[in-house]
């Protein structure tokens, strides 16, 4: 494993890598992370209260188009967006449909009849609406999720929303804990299995087992956090009320344009 190849493979997934720029067409990467949250927010709120099929469908399609055009996506992500998500919608529409109260649907052509259970077109449409509603909200969240990095989000929270930097950068440092704790949890699991804890199935054994992981994990976490805190203190973290920002995350005219455009789109869809 040469360091160069390791770098190359890791770079794609590295949340800390410098924000890439993929040209003007991939415009989503050039927007401020906050605008990518603010723009779809009214639409997400609205979708919570819709019951029809058209509204979520429009948002699904609009968002997909926006992502495919405006975001630089890996082939796998594209595959998930364009093939897997429609399949999930199809599956969910059926399973939600089955759970729909037939009385609410009224008379409608029967699709399948198995014994006493009748699956009607009306029930399926109700299921489809629910599935699309959930999917559209997830897709709207992905506009920001697929095109901004955690550190950039923190920087813009600090720079634009005036979130105290002590909070923001501590959260950023805490990001680094996640892989470490995951590894530690794996080792603890292994160690407990060696001690013969794995015996026993079912939810009660699971709870008992998981409770056993908490103490060593927490003990390790607290110790680690204390050490990180000392290291940050000794590098003057929190010395002043501000700190030098080397990366300026601008909030530009294009961010306003994007937000206004998205809100307008939302308003138009509402009025239809």
């Amino acid at each position, binding site marked *: 494993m040469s360091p160069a190849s390791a770098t190359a493979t890791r770079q794609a997934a590295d949340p800390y*890598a410098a924000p890439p720029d993929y040209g003007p067409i991939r415009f989503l990467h050039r927007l401020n992370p906050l605008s990518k949250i603010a723009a779809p927010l009214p639409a997400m709120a609205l979708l919570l209260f819709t019951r029809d099929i058209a509204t979520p469908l429009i948002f699904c399609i609009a968002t997909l188009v926006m992502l495919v055009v405006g975001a630089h996506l890996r082939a796998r992500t594209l595959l998930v967006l364009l093939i897997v998500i429609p399949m999930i919608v199809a599956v969910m529409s059926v399973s939600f449909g089955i759970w729909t109260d037939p009385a609410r649907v009224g008379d409608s052509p029967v699709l399948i009849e198995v014994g006493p259970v009748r699956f009607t077109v009306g029930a399926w449409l109700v299921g489809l609406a629910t599935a699309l509603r959930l999917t559209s909200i997830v897709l709207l969240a992905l506009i920001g999720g697929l095109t901004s990095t955690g550190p950039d989000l923190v920087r813009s929270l600090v720079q634009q929303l005036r979130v105290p930097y002590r909070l923001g950068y501590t959260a950023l440092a805490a990001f680094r804990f996640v892989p470490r704790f995951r590894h530690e949890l794996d080792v603890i699991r292994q160690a407990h*299995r060696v001690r013969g804890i794995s015996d026993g199935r079912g939810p009660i054994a699971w709870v008992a087992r998981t409770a056993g992981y908490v103490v060593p994990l927490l003990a390790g976490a607290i110790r680690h956090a204390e050490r990180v805190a000392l290291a940050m203190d000794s590098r003057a973290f929190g010395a002043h009320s501000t700190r030098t920002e080397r990366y300026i995350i601008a909030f530009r005219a294009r961010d306003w344009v994007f937000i206004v455009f998205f809100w307008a789109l939302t308003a138009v869809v509402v009025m239809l």
Partner: protein
Amino acid sequence: MTDDRGMTDDRGVDAQPAAETADDAQPAAEAAPAPAVRVRSVSIQHDGRAASTPSDVSFDVAPGEVVLILGPSGSGKSTLALALNGLVPHAVPAELTGTVTVGGMRTADATVARLSERVAMVFQDPDSQMVTGTLLDEVAFGPENLLVGRDEVLARAEESLRQVGLWERRRDNPDLLSGGGRQRLAIACALAMKTPILVLDEPTANLDPAGIDEVYAVLRRLVDSGDHAIVLVEHNLDAAIDLVDRVIVLDAQGRLAMQGQTRQILVSRVDELLRLGVWLPVALLAALRLRAAGVPIDPLPLTPRELTASLDAQDALPALAAQRGHPSAGASGHPAADASGHPAGNTASGRPEPAVRVTALDLDRGRTRILNGIDLTIDRGSFVAIVGTNGAGKTTLLQAIAGVIRAPAGCIQVLGVDPAKADARTLARTIGFVFQNPEHQFIKGTVAEELAHGPQLQKMAADDIETRVSTMLDRFGLQELRDEHPFLLSGGQKRRLSVGTALIDGAPLLALDEPTFGQDRARASELLTLLDALNAEGTTVLVVTHDLQLVAEHSSHILVLDSGSVAAFGPTASVLASDALESAGLRTPPLARAFREIVRHPDWRSVTRLSDLPSGAPS
């Protein structure tokens, strides 16, 4: 508490006015005599502890000077280091009496943030010092906190990263660096603070030998440049000793035992140091042993190179009694291997079944091949050290043998059991596995329950369990702590308990994964003494480790892994004498290195461990 040591006389000088003078002379750096660090009558009491460690310690560090703090574990070395940049008492709950002055600023009166412009710190664990996502951001983090201008931040970042040789990798995530690389990054972060004083607290305790070499190469350049006063807390004296101008020695109670020029203290007061339990350079220990055997070595050497030179200066050396007595030390091949570590007793019916037999073992993790065609026979009663660079597959092999991870069926036999197919109970009776961090293995609320857990799973009778637990508690010195929560034990006690839980089901085989990693020398040698005793009683010991001198001193066999294959396996002496370690990317331990270079006494070249040397008292 009376202090009868001669070196602390200057305590009598009234420290108060002296400190004030330093305060007044603010740009003190130019004035030659002003010390960079001035510690006066410092005692530190951690909240909830009865005693203060360190206790009433005074010393100075001159600008550009390199000072090493030595002392047995628990003497407060690290606490003292934390006091130098104000973390004690400002960030750590402890009470500090006396004064610490750095660059004319008294730490009690200043914030840690202000002090960070005078003193930069490097800690033991590189992981816990990383807060951002790229090397460049990491180095910039400190100066940014101090509101240094953007261009200056970048200039400092570049300079510091270049000093540690990481500038080319500035866009990488610190996670991509090796342990040594991350610790070099931590040093770069300290350099970027542009302080006149650098404090390093056990900077290599968590590193493998290659990482230790990297860090010391960087430190050597820093020392040569002479820009920093450096205070170093370090157990690995073999790496550090020739960088250090002066040593400060604390005793077990945290009092100042001695301070002075490195060579003068180490050579002339070596008996006191040994009595204090301070770890000494292995070259010095070897020379002391030879002196006792009548070899007139003078002056005493501190480094392997000096040891080689002083032995070559001898016209005659005594015969190597150890090698005559035990054919294993010099010879290679299997008959010698059997003789070296084999306890009498199992040999009743001809050649005994081996402890471990591995045949054509391949193991993949995901799409990566970790182990590749391993063939191996480990005899009963041997003490096998598994060594190799990071990623060579050491831990994977150990875990496969112990059944922690499942190998393909039929490749491994441990005393007639295939760990890939055995159930947990059989496995526990056959081989005990000790994880790197003992806490990970603890599952019960008291020490006694922890020990009883294994026998309970074996469905032993209650009386039998109690007898076993009680025997174990005595064996590992934990009887008084039987109702204590395992997490509340000290580090050494936790380690002993974890070994106890691994052995209580009667497993004749013990496997340990990096048991000394990140531990100080005193605790490491305590564990090794324990393992030696178990091994002498007939337990077969397999241990994965980075510490090659430890390997040399304790193991009967060395297994060298390189990229998932066995590069060498044989008796310790013959592996150390070959070039197997070097060709697998490892370093020969210091003692073997020193003796291998001997020109005038060729029969001494094969000496690898202290016990090979003739000793004063013939046994």
